[in-house]
């Protein structure tokens, strides 16, 4: 393991995973944490199941096309809870603010958060505010922690994928990652390319109505689709086979990727999900996804197999197969 923390340790790829597995897990060891899903799954004595999650947001720039750090934080936590099938209920919001931060900007962020909680029905019930000296925070850092209830009959985990399951995504990939790059690198777009940041609890609810047999759900944030699929493949001890020509990417995103030598599979998404669904339920779930405003572009991109356990393989447009590895190192400067 490295002997000092690098920026890459926060970017969600191999280095982050290493840190979790070699430092945090062994010392905080308990079966709930060990599952390493997006949310912790807590079973109460009454039989009710809670999903519980926390996230910190250190994105720079704070305001970007399609959102800001407040929208990102609230959607992020709502989505983490939703990915375990839970109905997100309550959230806390903590702010670490740099001295000198404009009040108008703080208000913008708060209003952004309000919009999301109103849309999603979640209530912010606790919070904290700290102010640090100039230079000690990049304007503002936000932490959101959330709790939700998992309905009966819902058993979703990255470890539940079975050979034969269909792999689906709810829309185009890389939009958020590129919107952030746009801001940072000063690129311009012929059409406005925005972050896809969105709260997905409604989409997930609609999917669960179509079928309770959804095996896995995850939102491909840091590290992109590639990292998310690798995580699930490892947890499920299965192979995830996807087809290059089925992976939906917008032309503008492709254009930027070509220019900068990036791979859209590794770009962050803040309003998309990956679903792994048994074949007999796939059509119904896909239809439910397409029927929701946040899932209109849903497509099947691949299937779960059993021949290369814990790997993600992609069939290229030429028909050959190649590996898709987890992200390594810093992909983009802090994106969420």
């Amino acid at each position: 393991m490295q002997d000092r923390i690098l920026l890459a340790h926060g970017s969600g790829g191999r280095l982050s995973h290493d840190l979790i597995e070699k430092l945090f897990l062994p010392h905080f060891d308990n079966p709930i944490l060990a599952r390493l899903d997006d949310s912790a799954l807590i079973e109460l004595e009454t039989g009710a199941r809670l999903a519980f999650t926390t996230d910190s947001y250190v994105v720079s720039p704070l305001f970007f096309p399609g959102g800001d750090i407040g929208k990102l934080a609230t959607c992020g936590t709502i989505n983490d809870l939703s990915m375990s099938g839970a109905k997100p209920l309550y959230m806390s919001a903590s702010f670490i603010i740099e001295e000198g931060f404009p009040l108008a900007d703080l208000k913008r962020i708060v209003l952004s958060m309000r919009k999301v909680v109103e849309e999603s029905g979640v209530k912010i019930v606790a919070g904290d505010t700290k102010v640090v000296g100039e230079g000690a925070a990049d304007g503002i850092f936000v932490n959101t922690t959330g709790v939700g209830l998992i309905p009966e009959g819902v058993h979703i985990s990255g470890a539940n994928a079975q050979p034969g399951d269909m792999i689906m995504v709810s829309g185009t990939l890389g939009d958020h990652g590129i919107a952030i790059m746009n801001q940072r690198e000063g690129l311009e777009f012929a059409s406005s390319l925005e972050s896809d940041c969105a709260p997905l609890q409604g989409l997930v609810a609609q999917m669960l109505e179509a079928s309770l047999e959804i095996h896995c759900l995850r939102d491909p944030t840091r590290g992109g689709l590639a990292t998310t699929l690798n995580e699930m493949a490892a947890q499920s001890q299965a192979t995830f086979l996807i087809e290059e020509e089925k992976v939906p990417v917008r032309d503008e995103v492709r254009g930027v990727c070509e220019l900068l030598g990036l791979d859209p599979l590794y770009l962050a998404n803040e309003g998309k999900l990956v679903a792994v669904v048994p074949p007999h339920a796939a059509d119904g779930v896909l239809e439910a996804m397409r029927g929701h405003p946040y899932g209109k572009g849903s497509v099947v991109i691949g299937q779960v197999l059993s021949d290369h356990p814990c790997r993600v393989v992609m069939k290229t447009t030429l028909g050959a197969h190649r590996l898709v590895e987890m992200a390594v190192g810093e992909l983009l400067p802090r994106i969420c």
Partner: protein
Amino acid sequence: MCLAIPALIRSIEGYRAEVEIGGVKRVVGLQLVPQAKIGDYVLIHTGYAISVVDEEEAQETLRLLAELAETYPDEIP
């Protein structure tokens, strides 16, 4: 570092050109291809155009390859 991408020149001002690829616009330097005009496709490498894409040659290559593909019946791999 051999990465060079074809982009369309939309406008030129002196040695700077605004080029477009897949809807994304970028400003690049044309010092190495002074003959480039608006409407040309140029190969961009680290912020500079290194050659003008010869569109006739490109079409000719594709034509040859299409002809070649036709001499082989469609088989399911």
